[in-house]
């Protein structure tokens, strides 16, 4: 394995007039918990879609564990797991059926798929709902079944787009536990989020994105710099400091109604 899990060079994507990703160069270290952070609309989802081969870039190259995503899909697709944001699952299958389907499509032998599915459903606390259709799952349950589907073929690199968005604390803790165990074995997790506390407590390595560009990247300590928290450092980086809402809403709160 090379030292970089993902190598991105000169990545661009435009949607009509709007530039979603404006020339990204990035190397994500292997075997780490990597966080891609940025405000809404920063281009995180677009970037992850292009890195995982779900969206064609206008320009630039992406290499995952040393293989070009667009020229060598056979090598890349077998080695990555993906949990996208805003795309559906096959929701008219039950949780167990979805895993059985995904695993077999991935080429894992049937008996092995069923064994892994049972374990994943257990660990992710979905065993009780395994025969329920995914369409009837809650947001947290969907994220968990999506994670299970992404892990089923034991990928080297896992890409998760907002895996904790809309997830209750109990499910979030479960997802976290699974991911920590997974990275401890030397695998790489790349996930996007805009919850800084979460990124700070989970990640070893962070890339900050805003307006389609990478503003900073490196280990957590490097990106945080002199700021007391990642949140502070992030707000400075994306230039959202010093906005004071104190005087305008003076009627809000106790006193005269």
């Amino acid at each position, binding site marked *: 394995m090379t030292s970089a899990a993902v190598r991105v060079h000169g990545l661009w994507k435009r949607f009509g007039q709007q530039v979603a990703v404006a020339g990204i160069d990035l190397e994500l270290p292997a075997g780490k918990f990597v966080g891609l952070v940025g405000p809404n609309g920063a281009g995180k989802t677009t970037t992850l879609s292009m890195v995982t081969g*779900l969206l*064609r870039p206008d320009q630039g190259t992406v290499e995952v564990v040393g293989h070009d995503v667009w020229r060598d899909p056979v090598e890349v697709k077998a080695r990555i797991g993906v949990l996208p944001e805003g795309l*559906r699952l096959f929701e*008219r*299958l039950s949780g167990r*059926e979805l895993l059985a389907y995904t695993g*077999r499509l991935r080429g894992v032998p049937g008996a092995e798929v069923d064994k892994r599915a049972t374990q994943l459903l257990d660990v992710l606390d979905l065993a009780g709902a395994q025969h*329920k259709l995914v369409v009837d799952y809650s947001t947290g349950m969907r994220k968990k079944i999506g994670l299970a589907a992404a892990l089923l073929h034991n990928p080297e690199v896992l890409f998760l787009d907002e895996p904790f968005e809309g997830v209750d604390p109990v499910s979030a803790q479960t997802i976290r536990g699974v991911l920590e165990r997974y990275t401890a074995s030397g695998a790489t997790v790349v996930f996007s989020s805009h919850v800084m506390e979460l990124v700070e407590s989970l990640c070893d390595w962070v890339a900050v994105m805003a307006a389609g560009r990478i503003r900073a990247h490196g280990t957590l300590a490097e990106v945080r710099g002199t700021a007391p928290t990642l949140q502070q450092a992030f707000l400075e980086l994306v230039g959202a400091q010093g906005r004071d809402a104190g005087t305008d809403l003076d009627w809000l709160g106790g006193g005269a109604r």
Partner: protein
Amino acid sequence: MSAATEANVTATVVRLKLSLLRNGLRQSGGRKAAYVASAVVTLLFAVGQVLGLVLLRGTAHADALVVLLVAVLGLGWAVMPLFFPGGDETLDPTRLVMLPLRPRPLVRALLAASLVGIGPLFTVCLFAGSVITVARGAAAYVVGAVAVVLALLVCVALARAVAAANIRLLTSRRGRDLAVLSGLVVAVGAQVVNFGAQRLGSAGLGQLDPVADVLRWVPPASALGAVHSVSEGAYGTAAGQLALCGVVLAALIAVWARHLTRLMTSPDGSTLHGAESAGRERSSTRLGRLLPGGRTGTVMERSLRYVWRDPKTKAAWVTSLAIGLIVPVFNALQGTGSVYFACFAAGMLGLQMYNQFGQDTSAFWMVAMTISSTRDAYVELRARALALLVITLPYATLVTVLTTALLGDWARLPEALGLSFALLGAMLATGAWTSARFPYSIPQEGYKNVAPGQVGLAWISIFGGMAAGALLCAPVIVAAIWLHTGPDATAGRGWPLLPAGAAHGAALAYAGLRLAAPRTAARLPEILTAVSKA
């Protein structure tokens, strides 16, 4: 609450309804045009109906026809909220649940708001036209005015009561699934009406009278029955019919108010989803064991499950199965058919191969992640075609045999079967190719089958594909024609067309899949973008 605030609530809710109607105009170009066009068409249709009703005045059985019309309209109001729950946002009282309102003023306000709109206007036009058709004398017109108001109120209250009673169903996933199947009810209903009209055309309007005698006493039709009774001088009967209408109206409002109170004081249905399906083991292995292993079996299993479980796919399949059967068989029953009409079944079912990836919705990413070569794409497409054949092949055969049996034209069965199989193969081929080349999104909610902005794409895909399919079948069609018009034409010589047609179809399907596979593998991100628009 004072009378002033009650009037305020009514005025506010009516204004809300007017704003919602106006906002229909504030959409993007295409949707605005569709909104205006549907309003104009509805009104033109109403005007046409009124004119027709006025022309019917004085003809025999006109009163029976009017009563039937009003009853059908009443039925329409009753079922509408079940199939178009999103049609009227003020219909959903759970949206108002956070406001400090008492049930009584709320009922009044919502009833008033329901009277605003194109639907009520259409209904009033028809009811007024009906009164003109049957009323004779000043007294009848006076009663008619009352009858129109009463009948409209019954219709509106009926819709509201049905919606309130079923709101738990309507806001749940099952309710939304039901709404998707609404198109089917319309299609089947149209067939029933069509055949009913044909029977009436041949047997005369007198057939309606016994039905009308019953409906005359069923509100809201009883209100129009009263107008007829007054015209006949039967004032007692008229009073009874009007009173019945009034009682039913009061009862409906009471039922509605009770449901409304309960709705506003209990948790809403959206949090109680799916409890009934929990814990039920889904038999996953029985189907799986019959299918081949590997990707082929996995994909086939999911495709076949979706035919049953996904409301959109199910609606498309049922429509295809029904029309594929109705057209050849009913034509044969009426003696106007031909064995070759049986090819219709193959054609309709072959349509299901079109836009395969659009049927996946954005869940296509799960497929895209596992296709890394042309070979993968070929196996995926072939499995989908095989899943389709599992249903289509026996069904097309059955329809062809049934049509032949009805016509007694057994000599032509082999060639009709051969043509069916050739057509099926051509549809699979063109379907696979257009799935890769012209994918489009299928909205999961509502009854539309194409996302806004992709209608052109869908047309190219379906009609271009069908034309190409027919063209690809040309050799078999030409051979069939030549057999019957050639120098030594006899009916019994068509049997070579059965193996020839089947082989032609199989070859076409194979070639189509082979051509579609590299396109699919090369265009995965583009296909995903195209099918994720809804």
